[in-house]
C-alpha cells in the first residue's frame, strides 16, 4: 500500500479543517482513499490548529494522529516558530509554507526542504479575502503530482457555482503555476507496508 501522510498547521479561522477535507475529497474524486481529521485544541480564532490527511490506494484503517508526516502544509509562517510544528517530519520531508518571504529567509529544519508561496496575497487577488488554504492545496498538488488540480476544482464545484467557482478555479490554476511542477514527486512517501 502506498500511503501519503500530510499534516496541515494553521490558525483557527484559516480554514484548516476545510483544507484537510478538500484534499481527502479530491483524492476520493480520483479513485483513491482519503482520510481527513482535525486535532482540535482551543476552539477560537487565531489559536494554532492541526489537521491530518492520509491518502492511499486502498482503505486506511489506522486512526492515530500523524506523528511522522512526509509533508507539512503551514498556513501561517509564524507557526514555524512554535515548538512542535515541524516535529516528526520524515528525513527529506517537504514543507509548503504560506509566506511572502522566500524560503531562504525562513527557519528550515535540518534535512527538510521548504517552498514558500504567497498564498494569502494570491487569495486576496482572486477572492478578495486572504484565505490561503485553496492556493496552498493547488501548489501542493502541483509540486507532488499526487493527482491533477482538476480533482480539487471538481470538489469545489460540488459546493460552489457561478462567479465564486470561477474565481476559485482561476486562483487554483494561478497558484499551481507559482511552484515548480513535479518537484516533490519522488517524495510522495510510502510510510505503509
Amino acid at each position, binding site marked *: 500500500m502506498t500511503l501519503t501522510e500530510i499534516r496541515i498547521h494553521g490558525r483557527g479561522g484559516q480554514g484548516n479543517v476545510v483544507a*484537510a477535507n478538500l484534499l481527502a*475529497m479530491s483524492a476520493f474524486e480520483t479513485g483513491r482513499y482519503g*482520510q481527513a481529521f482535525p486535532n*482540535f485544541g482551543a476552539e477560537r480564532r487565531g489559536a494554532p490548529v492541526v489537521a491530518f490527511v492520509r491518502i492511499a490506494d486502498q482503505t486506511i*484503517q*489506522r*486512526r*492515530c494522529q500523524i506523528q511522522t508526516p512526509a509533508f507539512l502544509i503551514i498556513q501561517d509562517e509564524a507557526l514555524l516558530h512554535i515548538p512542535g510544528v515541524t516535529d516528526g517530519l520524515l528525513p527529506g520531508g517537504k514543507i509548503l509554507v504560506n509566506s511572502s518571504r522566500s524560503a531562504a529567509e525562513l527557519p528550515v529544519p535540518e534535512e527538510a526542504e521548504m517552498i514558500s508561496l504567497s498564498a494569502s496575497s494570491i487569495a486576496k487577488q482572486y477572492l478578495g479575502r486572504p484565505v490561503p488554504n485553496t492556493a496552498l492545496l493547488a501548489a501542493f498538488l502541483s509540486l507532488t503530482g499526487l493527482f491533477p488540480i482538476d480533482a480539487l476544482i471538481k470538489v469545489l464545484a460540488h459546493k460552489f457555482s457561478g462567479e465564486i467557482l470561477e474565481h476559485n478555479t482561476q486562483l487554483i490554476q494561478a497558484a499551481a503555476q507559482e511552484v515548480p511542477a513535479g518537484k516533490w514527486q519522488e517524495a510522495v512517501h510510502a510510510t505503509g507496508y
Partner: protein
Amino acid sequence: MQQAIEGSLAIARAVALCKPQVVAAYPITPQTHIVENIARLVADGVLDCNLVSVESEFSAASVVLGAAAAGSRTYTASASQGILLMSEVLYNIAGLRIPTVLTCANRAVSSPLSIWNDQQDSMAVRDAGWIQLYCADNQDAVDTTIQAFRIAERCELPVMVCVDGFTLTHTLEPMEIPEAEQVEHFLPPYHFSRSLDPQNPISVGTLVSPDLFSEARHSHHQALLNAEAEIISAAEDWAKISGRKSPGLLQADGPEGARIGILIMGSVYGTLADARSHYTDLEPVRLIKLRSFRPFPVKALQQACEGLDELIVLDRAMSPGSGGILGNEVRAALHQMEHLPRIHNFAIGLGGRDVPMDALPKLLAAIDQEQPEYFSVFDVVLDRLPEQDR
C-alpha cells in the same frame, strides 16, 4: 452511493433515512455536527420531522420519551456531561421499555474537563437498561444507526449507538450511504404496541409496589438478554440488503492458531488491525471487536476466546478504585471456560490520548510477565505524578 463525507454528516443522513418523526437534542461537543446536519436536512425538506429545540439534555431525553410513548419514531444524540444530565431520564426510558435511538458521540467526563474522546460517558450509564452498540468505523456507524431503529422497535428497548467522538464523528472518509428504498425495505413504519391514545387511556410510569418490582426488573433484564437474537438478525438482514456485513454481537479475526487476543470496543480496532499488518515480526494476534456491550454476549465471547492463552482487554474508561470496567466484565464472563486465557486489563486512550500504531508491539511486550496485569492505565507517565500518586 459511495461518498467521502464527515462521520457526523453520514450519521445524520442515516438517521434521516430512518425518518424519525421527532428529534430533540441539545448541542454538546463532539455531538454537535450530527444534530446540525439533521437540522439542515429538515430545513432543506429532505427530512420531514418535528425538530424540538430544548434547553437541556434532560429535556431532550424527556421530549423523546414522551413522543415515543405517544407513538412517534424518535431520535436524540449527546455526549459526556450531556449523557450524565440525561441519566435520570435514560433509566426511565429503558424501564418504561420505550424504543428510541440515541447516538453517543463518546467523550471523556469532567473533571478534569476534556472535550476529547474516551468512553467514560456511555460506561457511566451502562446499567440504565439500554442496548449499547459500539462502532469501529464510520461505515459501521451508518449501518448500526439504521439497524438500531429496527432493534429498538422490535425489542421495545432503547438503543445507544456509541461512536468515538472526533476520531469518528469528525473524520472524513469514503463510505457507502444507503439508498432510501434499501432502508424502507429493512425498517417498517413504527407501531408502538403500548402507544398513548386518548381513546384508550393507559397510565405510564406509575408507582410499582415491592410486590411487583422484582418482576419488573427481571423482565427488563430478560428483554436485554433476548435482544441478542434481534441484534444478530438485524445485522444479517441488513447485510442481505446492503451487501455489507456488520459484526452482530462481536467479531473475531486473525490468523488461525493465534494464542494472543486483544479485545476492544470502538475505533481503536482500526489502528490495531492496521498495526497487525504493518509489524510483520510480531506474534500472531486475534482481534476481538466487541460491538454489543449491552446485552453482554457471554457465550459469543467465550467462543471468540477459544484457544487463546493470553487476552488483552482494552478499556476506554475506568472505574476509579476498581479498575477496568470492560476488563472485569470479561473476567466474569470467561471464568467458566475450560481453558481460561490469562487476562491483562489496560485502560488506553483516555481523554483523547492518541493510540499510535506502536501501541500494538508495546501491548504485546507488556504482557510478557509472570503475573497478568490486573489493571493499569497503559500510557500513563508516572514521572509526572507526585510520589504518593504513582
